């Protein structure tokens, strides 16, 4: 198994996850972060720190979110590792409220 970043990250990209990941397995593009499933050690440390609840273990994803497993794998291979927090995307707080978080 591995943990997976899902749609709630899009448009927020708080990147709190990066500060706790013990193995630096978060990658980033202009929209969101992705977890490299080859490096994730399943510690789960990122799940509670995500302000918008975007991260889940792969086995717990609803059927309509399973495609995020492949998206994370593919995009992690194509994007750079993120080693330090970034400022959230503009509008992140508004989106967070929209998500009811």
């Amino acid at each position: 198994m591995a943990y997976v970043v899902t749609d709630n990250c899009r448009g927020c990209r708080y990147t709190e996850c990066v500060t706790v990941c013990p193995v630096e397995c978060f990658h980033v593009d202009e929209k969101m972060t992705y977890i490299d499933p080859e490096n994730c050690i399943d510690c789960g440390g990122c799940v509670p720190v995500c302000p918008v609840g975007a991260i889940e273990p792969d086995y717990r994803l609803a059927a309509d979110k399973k495609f995020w497993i492949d998206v994370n794998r593919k995009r992690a291979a194509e994007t750079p590792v993120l080693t330090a927090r970034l400022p959230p995307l503009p509008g992140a707080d508004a989106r967070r409220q929209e998500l009811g978080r």
Partner: protein
Amino acid sequence: MTKSDLDRADVDGFRVAVIGSGPSGFYATEALLRSGTPTAVDMFEQLPVPYGLVRFGVAPDHPKLKLVTTAFDRIAKAPGFRFVGGVAVGRDVSIDELRDCYDAVVLATGADISRSLGIPGEGLPGSHHAGDFVAWYNGHPDYRDCHFDLGCGAATVIGHGNVALDVARILAKTGDELRRTDIAAHALEALAESRIREIRVVGRGRPPQAKFSAKELRDFLDLATCDTTIDSRDVVPDDFTPDNPQDPELTEKLALLRTFSQQALTKPRRCTFRFGLSPFAIRGQGRVETIDFAQPSSAVENIDCGLVFRSVGRRTAPLAGVPYDELRGVHANIEGRVTKGSTVIAGLYVCGWSKRGPSGTIGTNRGCGMATAAAVLADLPARMGQRSRDPDALLARLDTRVARMVSYRDWAAIDAAEKRRGAPLGKPREKFVSLPDMLAAADA
């Protein structure tokens, strides 16, 4: 340790001592060495081997979590890092001595002391701290001679945290399920012969209050010879309905417990989760025979067993020269700066479990170590010129004071030897479980 390991060319910057080589110690080190502020870190470890609870806490059947050591090894390769193994702070060197020599001292000493229940009979033979059992099966040299009577039929684990689950799961597994892990040889031998058939994991709270995580609970779905179940007397159907259905962790945990409550029992071993029971006495003639629990109705329930594992939390071992917070069971601190009363002690810091108490995952300790490193870095300019003695001269003195100082290169030799020993057995490593064996491997 050889002379060249002690030499340090790049001594222009600040000098920091980190005490302890578990996750928070490594992550504080990483943040210091990456900061851009010229800083060298000496990491003190009382054992000849690093990684703290990653080596001696994480269960042998959770190998993926142990891959975090590759991150630690990467940190250890950074210029300015030095491992000082085999030196116990408080025994071989005092905190005050370190504070004289370093611009900052960061305590990352973990939470080594198991809490007690405070009930009669805890000291009876057969009653153990869960943490001692964990250290034993993980091959900690101080615990290798512990004896656990696995010849009895029933064991009770008191507590509903992840350590309680580790203990119950290891007891529930067969020799074949553990054989290809890095479990200590003495523990594998004893567990393969175990006659325990009945394991109970007992807590005071209702199912939603259990502190263990869903991921650890999932491991109980596929045990080879052990069924997991719930005692139907302890629960009502509502117990499995989360108050907050938005909480996926709680929802999954309760769904798993519901699954256990409905499982048919067919396997020779059984692990039963019990709820709402508060222990008030452990009794027996010369050894543990039964535990008295109070039910929510105040009625008394006796659970017979020959082994008890108490898993009700841990606290940090106090260290001479460091104020202690009795209430929280940690080195007294405000956000990582060690304090005496309301006064900050200059140059003394703390991170990880010895700062916050024993909670969170390895990742939580990365954030924690980085936060403490930020406090150190903020204070360092004001510490300039404060230290009165030379850390390299201290290490040279320590090298004559202790039996054998261990460098990271020495550890690499121990590591390689353990892996070689494990290979023919199909184990990732066969740990050395005594200090002489570790040191012999370092010298080989």
